[in-house]
């Protein structure tokens, strides 16, 4: 079982009075097409059938600035620091208004991506690691962080299968790596993967091979959860 000696990665939320939270926070990180949402849905079913209350939450689902982010991305209107801070705002909103209240109420929170996706994207775009680390010091330390690792080649085919085309942002076209979307996608995804691999070491992710079949991945996730959390 895990024992956490602190609640937050950094300076936390000093104005909140919190001791121990009765719930559990389980994070699943991974690129688009790594199978995150499928796995989360299956975990939710499993946990609920065992009688646990579950909240699933993803990035960019808050009502605070979600709309602003969508609007800005459509026109590519915002600078990188601005966009980075808007995503951080959005994350903060979800953390304080959804995740923490649910954990206080004893829920198991399944987070479809967390601060690490935001950090990886920003670092690929030149943000300073130290700046990001300090900023996201207000984030709760999850009980488990899973990382569904999938090679850019597999992601490419999954994107074609699922959407029929490559997404502008998921191809990192804003970086100007190459006007060729295929090339840009592959390079951008491999840059992201490098960042994730670094973060995995630093933050102790449990790495899962996301190219395995769905049931096998699910089985492994459940085993890891049972091993680490006293459910």
């Amino acid at each position, binding site marked *: 079982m895990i024992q956490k000696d602190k609640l937050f990665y950094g300076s936390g939320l000093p*104005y909140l009075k919190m001791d121990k939270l009765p719930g559990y926070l389980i994070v699943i990180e991974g690129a688009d097409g790594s199978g995150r949402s499928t796995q989360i849905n299956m975990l939710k079913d499993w946990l609920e059938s065992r009688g646990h209350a579950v909240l699933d939450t993803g990035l960019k689902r808050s009502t605070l*600035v979600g709309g602003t982010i969508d609007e800005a991305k459509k026109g590519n*209107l915002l600078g990188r*620091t601005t966009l980075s*801070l*808007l995503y*951080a*705002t959005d994350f903060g909103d979800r953390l304080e208004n959804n995740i923490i209240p649910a954990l206080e109420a004893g829920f198991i929170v399944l987070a479809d991506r967390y601060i690490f996706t935001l950090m990886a994207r920003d670092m690929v*775009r030149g943000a300073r690691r130290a*700046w990001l680390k300090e900023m996201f010091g207000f984030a709760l330390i999850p009980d488990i962080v899973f990382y569904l690792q999938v090679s850019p080649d597999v992601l490419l085919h999954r994107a074609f299968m699922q959407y029929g085309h490559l997404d502008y942002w998921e191809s990192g076209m804003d970086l100007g790596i190459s006007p060729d979307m295929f090339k840009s996608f592959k390079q951008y995804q491999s840059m992201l993967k490098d960042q994730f691999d670094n973060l995995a070491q630093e933050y102790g992710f449990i790495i899962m091979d996301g190219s395995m079949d769905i049931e096998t991945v699910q089985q492994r996730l459940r085993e890891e959860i049972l091993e680490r959390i006293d459910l």
Partner: protein
Amino acid sequence: MAMRKVKELGINKTYPGKLLIVEGIDGSGKSTQVYLLKRWLEEHGYTVFFTEWNSSDLVKDATRKAKKKNMLTPTTFSLIHAADFADRYERLIWPHLKAGYIVLADRYIYTAYARDIARGVDPAWVRNIYSFAVKPTAAFYFQVPVDVGVSRILRGRTALKYHEAGMDLGLSNDPAESFKLFQGIIKDQYDAMADKEGFHIIDGTLPIEEQQQQMRAMVEVMLRRYKPVIYNRSSANHEEGYEK
């Protein structure tokens, strides 16, 4: 041309412009002073770019919506204002400094430090957030006793907005009383950082003319080796932010 080294998103940058900013509690008279400084600079032929706190369009909508619903926590309040500032910084302030302009800012990152720390976020955390922004050429702090500032504000108007009055801090249920207490905390923050941040302190209770004289004398020295932007105005498109 004097270049300053700054860090922004991991890149060391230099710029030839000048950044002059004013800070102070509400009712300290800083906006009047920065306006008079702007007039004076323009009369001397300088092209000046003026910017205010909380004025970028895109983020403004989100900020307004969020404030109306009172759904902001100290952390999200801090972050959304940082995003708003970053938007102005990345699109307006930084490019103008880089192009060699004099940029005048009515409030800068110190406003965020003071307000956010007053709301209870970690001081080192908020300073880190704003570390992408350059240190100004000069920061003028208009120092007034809280009563002076508050009475100047309350005299002119009736309703104080929720966050403006610092109602979210739970200091008092009476908006005017809350405003006064909130401004007191902000003033303490400014006073505490004045030394460390190298503020030029101007006594905001002095006659307006005298304050302006002090400010102009200091700015004159700062501009001695500054090379103004040479640009043919007759062919220019005048956009928002540039007067005349």
